[in-house]
């Protein structure tokens, strides 16, 4: 699939950037092989740790820049969890905050040129989404036992026939959740990076006219910065919504 670079022609290979390549030569990828995906996920963890552990280390009354960045992020996610899932949901705040930070920084680091975006891979996001799905379902059953099935039974609907139809729809939509949850994140990231690469491909053949795609790339890059933050927020907020469904089933 890897395309060759040809001088003076359109070089549009938008999917090449998503290839998982072993770090230390070779082409074989086993489960233990350190690849570029491993590297960038590791870097994400390092950056998150730096911000959240080393940043607020000073515990100053007047915070430094790193400390206030960490505090603002913490407060933002905390408020989101508290608003949607209430006091009960705060028990699961560390999990949601971890998800948010990991996705946010994986998205942001992926915008560095020549980097690799782990969150554009459905393999990565599917694991995150399945973890959320299993956790939330388990919490629902542990907290409410069989009462969790009230989530699928819309008791406010007027007739029993309608309730049965709605129950079918609710069950389907419940099981589509991990699918849409993972594909939304991976699809958005993949689309954005592919668009950047397509525009970069135009530049090769245009000579001086390459200014136009370069300006376009700059604009799209700004948009991607926004998408990176919004998708992390959306992933986290949907996790909270699902968690809230598990904590308070029934309509």
């Amino acid at each position: 699939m890897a395309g060759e670079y040809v001088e003076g022609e359109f070089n549009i290979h938008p999917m090449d950037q998503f290839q998982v390549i072993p770090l230390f030569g070779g082409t074989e990828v086993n489960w233990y092989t350190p690849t570029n995906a491993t590297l960038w996920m590791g870097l994400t963890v390092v950056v998150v740790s730096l911000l959240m552990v080393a940043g607020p280390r000073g515990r100053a009354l007047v915070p430094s820049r790193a400390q206030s960045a960490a505090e603002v992020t913490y407060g933002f996610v905390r408020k989101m969890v508290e608003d949607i899932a209430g006091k009960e949901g705060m028990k699961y705040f560390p999990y949601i905050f971890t998800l948010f930070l990991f996705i946010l920084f994986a998205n942001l680091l992926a915008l560095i040129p020549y980097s690799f975006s782990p969150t554009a891979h459905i393999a990565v996001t599917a694991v995150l989404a399945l973890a959320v799905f299993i956790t939330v379902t388990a919490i629902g059953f542990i907290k409410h036992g069989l009462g969790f099935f009230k989530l699928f039974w819309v008791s406010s609907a007027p007739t029993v026939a309608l309730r049965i139809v709605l129950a079918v729809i609710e069950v389907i939509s419940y099981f589509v959740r991990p699918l849409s949850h993972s594909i939304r994140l991976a699809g958005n990231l993949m689309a954005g990076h592919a668009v950047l690469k397509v525009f970069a491909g135009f530049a090769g053949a245009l000579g001086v006219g390459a200014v136009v795609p370069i300006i376009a790339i700059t604009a799209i890059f700004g948009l991607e910065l926004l998408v990176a933050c919004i998708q992390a927020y959306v992933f986290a907020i949907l996790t909270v919504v699902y968690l809230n469904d598990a904590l308070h089933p029934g309509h």
Partner: protein
Amino acid sequence: MEGNIAEMGQFIGAGLACIGMGGAGIGVGHVAGNFLSGALRNPAAAGEQTATLFIGIAFAEALGIFSFLVALLLMFAV
């Protein structure tokens, strides 16, 4: 012009799949536009509803992303 008919089908299918993305665009615009018109009528209540706005946008956008994924699969994976 040369190439086989299967490849032509792939490209046509990918193009058709992209129509779905237009639908998602309409949906997202609808959500954001209605939010804005509501927010301008009652700015005091708008701040609390931004989370709902993003949830709505995310649900509308997911379907467009699905069709984009189908297009990508047709172009590069089939």
